[in-house]
């Protein structure tokens, strides 16, 4: 598709300074309203004329949604905090370095300077059939263009596909799930709803047209990170084609607490999450249960990696994601040192 470089089609623009005013505007415009954070997911939709909202509600002036505060021994991150601010925060660096690594691996420096963490977890999928405006399931139609014998689907799902085979693009999402983060939502009627990060993201079986539990008029206001995994042993790795701009082919995020040293170390508790393989980031609870209480070594890693891909169904061009995911799970369990990459 040719890239359109003309100005975007006209829309109304509002720059409210409070959550309440923002929600009043969302309410007034209903289905025609669009929430604007950093805009780095939004502008593509608007420039390509695939989505044509009547009014943009820009959250850039809402001070209460910005910044990082300490809370109950953990952190509270405003949805409008930029990815760069997350990366540079001293407590994130000291206690939750997995979030730093994940945020730093997203997009490019300029995008991280503007893209917000709330936008990062709320962004839409990058399936190009869908982004190009093809009337697929996700767009309200009744076909998946990425899952036909002719489809180019190297980047698509290997797990939990249900009609739609798109994957979640968010790099911060798996790290937030590994940290047991809580997403604080202000619903359109003004109530506060707190959802575990794991349940914030939804797959096509629950709602094929949405990536998250957010309903029209809802705003994500803050992300709370509990003390639970502060200073744990973290592992994050994102495999992508280019080191800048590109979304994850597969990524893994884990938080682990071990008892004992080196070879004798026993996995006491663990969170293990992968992304780039399904429509939502997947917490691998069965694998977590399997490795809990086992030594942190190669044989545990092998058991974990085999269990991790159970039920996977590759498409024509993405079977490589199976060994990739297995190897990343192994690295998350036993570290990079001393382990070999297997195909």
């Amino acid at each position, binding site marked *: 598709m040719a*890239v359109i*470089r003309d*100005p*975007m*089609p*006209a*829309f*109304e*623009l*509002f*720059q*409210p*300074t*409070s959550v309440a*005013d*923002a929600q*009043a*505007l969302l309410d*007034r415009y209903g289905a025609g309203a669009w929430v*604007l954070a950093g*805009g*780095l997911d939004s*502008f*593509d939709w*608007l*420039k390509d004329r695939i989505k044509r909202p009547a009014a*943009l*509600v*820009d959250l*850039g*002036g809402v001070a209460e949604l910005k910044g990082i505060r300490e809370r109950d021994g953990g952190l509270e991150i405003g949805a409008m905090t930029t990815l*760069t601010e997350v990366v540079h925060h001293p407590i994130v660096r000291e206690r939750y370095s997995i979030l730093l690594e994940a945020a730093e691996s997203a*997009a*490019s*420096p*300029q*995008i991280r*300077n*503007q893209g917000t963490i709330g936008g990062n977890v709320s962004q839409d999928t990058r399936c190009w059939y869908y982004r190009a405006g093809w009337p697929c399931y996700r767009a309200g139609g009744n076909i998946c263009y990425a899952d036909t014998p002719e489809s180019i689907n190297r980047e698509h799902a290997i797990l939990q596909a249900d009609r739609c085979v798109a994957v979640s693009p968010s790099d911060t999402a798996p790290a937030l799930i590994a940290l047991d983060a809580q997403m604080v939502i202000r619903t359109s009627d003004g109530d506060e709803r707190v959802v575990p990060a794991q349940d914030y993201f939804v797959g096509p079986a629950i709602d094929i047209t949405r990536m998250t539990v957010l309903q029209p008029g809802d705003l994500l206001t803050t992300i709370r990170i509990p003390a639970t995994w502060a200073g744990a042993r973290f592992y994050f790795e994102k495999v992508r084609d280019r*080191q*800048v*701009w590109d979304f994850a082919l597969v990524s893994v995020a884990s938080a682990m607490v071990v008892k004992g040293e080196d070879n004798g170390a026993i996995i006491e508790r663990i969170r293990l999450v992968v992304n780039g393989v399904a429509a939502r980031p997947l917490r691998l609870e069965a694998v977590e249960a399997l490795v809990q209480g086992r030594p942190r070594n190669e044989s545990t890693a092998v058991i974990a990696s085999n269990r991790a891909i159970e039920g996977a169904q590759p498409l024509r061009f993405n079977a490589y994601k199976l060994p990739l995911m297995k190897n990343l799970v192994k690295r998350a369990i036993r570290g990079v040192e001393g382990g070999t990459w297997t195909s």
Partner: protein
Amino acid sequence: MSLSRRTFIKGVIAGGAVASSSAYLFRGGGSLLGQTSAPGSVERLITLVVNGQQRRVDALRQETLAMTLRYKLGLTGTKLGCDRAECGACTVLIDDVPHYACSVLTHSVRGRQVRTIEGLASPTGELHPIQRAVVDEQGFQCAFCLPGFVMAATGFLKTNPNPTREELAHGISGNLCRCQDYDKILTALMRGAEYMRGA
């Protein structure tokens, strides 16, 4: 004729913007069911601070900063490559932080300091240390990507004035060069960092 075609066109564009702006003054938020000032509604005639100067412009609500800079303020040093946040050619500083001007609404930068490549040299025309370094090292080929790289490096060096080559490469990794001249560009910008520390 002493007036170049380019300057002439720029003048016409700027004049047009001023002449037509009054027509929009009374229209702000007009489609809001008769309510002219919903909380957060915006006026089209706004003041920007670009390269230290206050500039009045009539900006469409959907206008990007790159468009305003290039086509309304005549600041064509800011380039448009992809218009999709994928190349870095349009990089400018907003409050000293590098942003893609193709992916920022002009209305979002009201009251903030915008700096473009035209605003780097001193008012007397003395080049910025990074610009001097680029001249000394001949760091670019066609140089379409130059303004973006120089602005990205200027912003990055404010947070890390003494980077390793690797750190600087990471800092300017949001910029592409179609001529693939990365090694020389990096050498020039490392030299620029050195000149800045000496300045």
